[in-house]
């Protein structure tokens, strides 16, 4: 897994991708470090974190195996 820092709140999570559409995100510590977390439902991924992960993929910081 590779670290990704959220561009909005600075929280760092670990991310891995088995394909373009598959994503695993492991948080460490308390997720309340994300200011949006309390207002999102538990199953929602923070949209800013999603953007940061997308950017990390585009910049090659996360490896995505070719399908």
């Amino acid at each position, binding site marked *: 897994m590779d670290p990704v820092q959220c561009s909005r709140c600075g929280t760092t999570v670990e991310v891995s991708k*088995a394909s373009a*559409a*598959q*994503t695993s995100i*492991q*948080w460490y510590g308390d*997720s309340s470090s994300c200011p949006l977390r309390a207002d999102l439902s*538990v199953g929602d991924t923070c949209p800013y974190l999603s953007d940061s992960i997308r950017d990390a993929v585009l910049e090659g910081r996360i490896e995505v195996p070719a399908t």
Partner: protein
Amino acid sequence: MSEAVRTIEAGRPPERFARGWHCLGLVRALGDGQPHGIEAFGTKLVVWQGADGELKVLDAYCRHMGGDLSQGTVQGDNVACPFHSWRWGGDGKCQQIPYARRVPPRARTRAWTTLVRDGQLFVWNDPEGNPPPEGVTIPEIPGYADGEWTDWVWDQTLVDSSHCREIIDNMVDMAHFYYIHKGLPTYFKNVFEGHVCTQYYAGTTHEIAATGLPIDIGQYEGQQTKSDATYWGPSYLVDKLWNSYGDLTIESVLITCHYPISSTSFMLLYGMVMKKLPGMDDATNAMIAQKMLAMIGEGFLEDVKIWKNKTRIDNPLLCEEDGPVYQLRRWYEQFYVDVADITPEMSQRFEFEIDTTKAVDFWQKELMEKEAAKASSS
């Protein structure tokens, strides 16, 4: 080079029972003024409604000579043992022995902490004997008290050859929805955090896929079935469901819950409330809900058939299209250890979204071929 054969590690089911709230059934069934016996948590419980209107739960076996209180009678607020009529209160204290001048000071049995929520009765189980922590509770269904939903339709089935981990595994098991439940998942995501575990599911049906219509892959919105399902603790799953039939969308809340009976058996309970459809009377709405629940019940029987014949497996062999079984079990483990032994790994947030592209593509082709074979043979 030798090719190593994968060996199944069956492991052993835990001896203890999960810490958490467990639903025992509906208030309307248990609150009829009679004592009810429920085999659970390796013993038997007695549930009754006192004259004060409160539901009470005690160990069923009388601490006097072992009589079964659930075979007794309700006397005022208390339950009377059928053997010698010792009267037990909901707080676990013996209140009266009709033939004795006084009650022995140590006449106290195990009283279970209860919770009534939206017409359901819950008990708190904790092997360490602690009360439920702040914030560990069962959520209310918005609008339930205002009559926006039908009354409960409810059923249960005994699963007598499996540990309840089998039903928990379903939370991450994307492919079984196709093979066991005639669904076709197009979107599938899990999140574990603290004591809750969520599954987002969206999909279409076998019938629609068989027509060859293009299917949106990886989309949650706009699918025929959408489901947002959360375990609040180890045993109580609240599944918000939206089923669309053309322009009509039926919204319902499906409860799938269980209480353990022994380490290899559990009672599976399932019930539903449906958002009342405008323009239909209560009886019609209730009938639709009952039909939907009956179909869901048939689906559970298919699960049970698998569980009855499968082996316990602690080391499942997974492919990339399977969900996060190991992370799910890591989350589930927190309910089987002392609170002091819960590790950060068990409760830290984890998110996992499956790539359904290959699965949907394969399943749709398979369904279309079946449909074509059916058409050419008729």
